């Protein structure tokens, strides 16, 4: 196979933004953990970033069309691995999410399935390109995404399962769903959602409590409302300019829950204020715009669809995580891409970026 790509076409600008955000993330993780038993997590995050970068360059070498080719197999393996989690998974804090391998490696399939789903959905709608979507088309798309989603929800891992949803929405939107069809689906989802809430099935009690306390955090300020309340106080007390690096009283005083993962944006807001927070969101905006531009310049439909799938997941995670921190969304345990501490999240993001680079490098193929 001839080399059709070159690193001159690598998106160095995008990588620059990403690395800048990663640097800010490392500094904030350090600030949030320096006085706790988690100190040193910033070093570990650097390690994850390094591995992520290597993986990113590595995956950019493999033609993404090959990924599209093998995705049915990957999808099958994903479903099997989810079944394996149920059968032999390790139970941590009441949730069965991990498969333990010899050598102390914990594998969480649900995180990687995101990537598989992005490619699978792209492939599916590529196959349907050029014609109006029929109801069976839509039904199949739902089945494609909802089967793994429900399995992950059962683990239970509400946060990760929710991140599958924007992949479906994005695919349907770009795949050409009609306005009438979208309206009907929305109505059905609303009615079903109401039913789920009423009967209490599918949702665990703690998930329900999170949603209730989201509506009124003061109901139980020491219970499930505690995290939201402390997060709001952290963000709000940051003011316009923030309290300064390493000076957030909520962060340093351990009032803010897990300030290095899910609530890292709250910690950042407290220490760097409105100005800093808007700066971060601006960086995200630039990254996302750059991604959409790459989707536009991609040489073919599957490339565009894959990039837009990635855009939808990242946008969704920002919306839910930052929304949670500022009190617009309930607590769901979704990390903030590129900011939150954690290997799985970092590796997913860099693998996704690797695919984006891959697509960009091959944009002049045709």
């Amino acid at each position, binding site marked *: 196979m001839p080399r059709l790509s070159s690193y001159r076409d690598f998106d160095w600008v995008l990588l620059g933004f990403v690395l800048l955000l990663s640097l800010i993330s490392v500094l904030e993780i350090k600030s949030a953990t320096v006085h706790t038993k988690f100190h040193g997590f910033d070093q570990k995050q650097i390690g994850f970033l390094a591995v992520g970068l290597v993986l990113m360059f590595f995956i950019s070498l493999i033609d993404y069309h090959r990924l599209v080719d093998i995705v049915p197999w990957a999808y099958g393996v994903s479903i099997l691995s989810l079944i394996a989690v149920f059968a032999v998974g390790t139970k941590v804090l009441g949730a069965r999410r991990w498969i333990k391998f010899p050598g102390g490696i914990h594998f969480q399939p649900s995180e990687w399935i995101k990537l598989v789903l992005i490619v699978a959905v792209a492939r599916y709608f590529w196959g349907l390109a050029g014609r109006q979507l029929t109801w069976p088309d839509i039904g199949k798309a739902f089945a494609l995404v909802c089967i793994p989603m429900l399995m992950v929800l059962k683990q239970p891992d509400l946060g990760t399962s929710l991140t599958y949803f924007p992949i479906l929405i994005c695919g349907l939107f770009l795949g050409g769903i009609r306005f009438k069809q979208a309206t009907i689906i929305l109505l059905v989802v609303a009615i079903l959602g109401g039913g789920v809430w009423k009967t209490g099935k599918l949702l665990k009690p703690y998930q329900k409590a999170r949603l209730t306390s989201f509506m009124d955090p003061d109901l139980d300020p020491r219970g499930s409302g505690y995290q939201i309340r402390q997060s709001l106080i952290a963000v*709000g007390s*940051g003011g316009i300019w923030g309290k300064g690096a390493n000076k957030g009283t909520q962060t340093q005083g351990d009032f803010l829950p897990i300030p290095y993962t899910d609530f890292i944006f709250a910690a950042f807001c407290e220490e760097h204020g409105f100005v800093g927070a808007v700066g971060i969101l601006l960086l995200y905006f630039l990254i996302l715009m750059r991604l959409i531009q790459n989707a*536009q310049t991609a040489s073919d439909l599957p490339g565009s669809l894959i990039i837009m799938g990635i855009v939808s997941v990242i946008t969704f995670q920002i919306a839910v995580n930052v929304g949670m921190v500022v009190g617009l969304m309930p607590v769901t345990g979704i990390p903030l891409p590129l900011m939150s501490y954690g290997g799985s999240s970092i590796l997913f993001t860099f693998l996704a970026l690797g695919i984006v680079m891959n697509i960009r490098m091959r944009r002049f193929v045709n």
Partner: protein
Amino acid sequence: MEELPLHSGLRALGPNGKAEKLPAGKLHISQYMVALVLAVLITGLWRLEVLGADNYRLLAEANRIRKVPVLAPRGRLFDREGRLLVDNYPSISCYILREQVKDANNDLALISQGLHIPVEQIQATLRRYQSAPKYQPIPLKQDITPDEQAFIEAHRNELPELETLDEQRRLYPRNGFAAHLIGYVGEVSEQMLNDSRYAFYSPGDVVGRSGVEQTYDALLRGTDGSRDIIVNSHGKELGHLGQTLAIPGQDLKLTIDLDIQMIAEKVLDGKIGAIVAMDPHTGEILAMASRPTFDPNQFSVRLTKNYWNEILNNPDHPLLNKTIQAQLAPGSTFKIIMSLAGLQENVAQTMHVPCNGGATFYGHFFSCDRHHGMVNIDNAIPYSCDTFYYTLANRLGIDTIARYAASAGLGQKTGIDLPDEVAGTMPSTAWKLKSQHEKWYAGETISVGIGQGAVAATPIQLARALSGIASGGVLRRPHVVFPDEVPSEMLQTIHENLPGTGEATIPLTTENWQIITDAMANVTGSPIGTAYIAHLDGVDFAGKTGTADVVGGRVKNSTNKATIPNAWFVGMAPRRNPDIVVAVLWEHGYWGNNSAKLAAQVVNAFVEKQRKRANNIRIAEAPKPTVLPTPLETTHPSPTPKPPNPAAE
């Protein structure tokens, strides 16, 4: 999976064979969507960080800054000469902060083990404070040991709800010395919290619960300060900001003379009863002792159940300050009041009553303990002749007696600056109608004449009544704290809260004053007096005994303690314008002269001290008591001038 169309080969072309591109319009919509999401998030940030910043900053401060009270040490108590009676000592208390944990109930077993408190007791404490606001610390254990303190320090992370606080704790004299007078401190009761007068107390405050500690609490307690400390979410102290210093409570000088008090305590030891000594010129209480007593130190930390039960089950009521709370028949000491009434009404002067061991009134025989022969007012007092006073009471009638008794303060509180004084009872026709809805029978008046029947008085009432009569009619408000130590508004409030007869005047002519005081001098000074055994050589010591039947009546030579009469004595030195008046109540002390011996020791100690003070110059000699029997025509000596009183301040 199987239904998904598989593709291979032509990658640049769609399944329909033509090259595919996403429509630019949809990508633009995507861009707008992303921008919209970020705009919404920025709006949310703006709402919190710009509009809500001030509010959230306060909440963040409230989170991390904890106000720790710095407790003011209570004012110390001194005797009239500045000798220390009550001090403070540093101590550490443990509190529970419910805000720090979701549910403290999960930790009770560990807390119980570490602090040596039964789980049920902690639960009871938590229940008591259930309705209190969550931020309020709950006192768990006071005066903890170094071991317990180490336990709390070592379990900061597991038990963030435990908090220690440095306090000053009361150190009272040992063995219940002056315990009733001084009182004790304790946690403020719910009852007090509901009273508007104690509005400035909050639950958990330590307040005076009895005695001087209670009356002068506002003065003694001082003002608590506070310290702002920075804590993390586990309550661990990270630093501190500022502090407001505590203002210590005001030290107070009591009117008590430690030397006199010690004698009073000593002579009462092992007995049930009370002694109060007072300076009639001013109303200053020089000594006040009550038996049985209790240990106020036990009250200053949380009381143990055993000690509390011991006090509760003691039939002689150790917590009762008998000087102001024991209301008993005064017996023959009441004859002083009878003499006052009889003389002022010009009845007693001319009375000559033959005593043949008693007399019959209204068909009943009322006995006297002896055949006194012909008795008049001058020897009726030293003889303590009942027949004379039966006759006098019968001639005066109950309402006249009641009027004079009331003028001397009986049946009413004196207004002493100690809590929970009782009023006693002075019967009258109106009193009986009101309390029993019955008419007064003339026959009932006879017993009243010797201080029996419905008459009930406290030692302080008798001491004060005698003070008034011996001082020519001037009644002072008794007090244990010098009024000039107390701000005038507070003094007024105390007087309003503790009403009584206060400053008053007894109608008493100079002539009658002399008759009564001379006769009382003969009680101890003359061999015919009932308390000659208690006379003091070279001291003008006068008084009156009382042997009061207890409820159930006198049973001769009974071994049943409860039927033995109460022994009273009220006395003064010198006889007119005295410098000291002493009232002694010895419950089941058998004869009044037993109490007279106790009073004599107190008076002697006082006089000895005065003489030493005056560089061994003997105090002015009082006129020699007239030898009895005295002819009625004898003119009474003019009142002696008040002797110099070096002890008076």
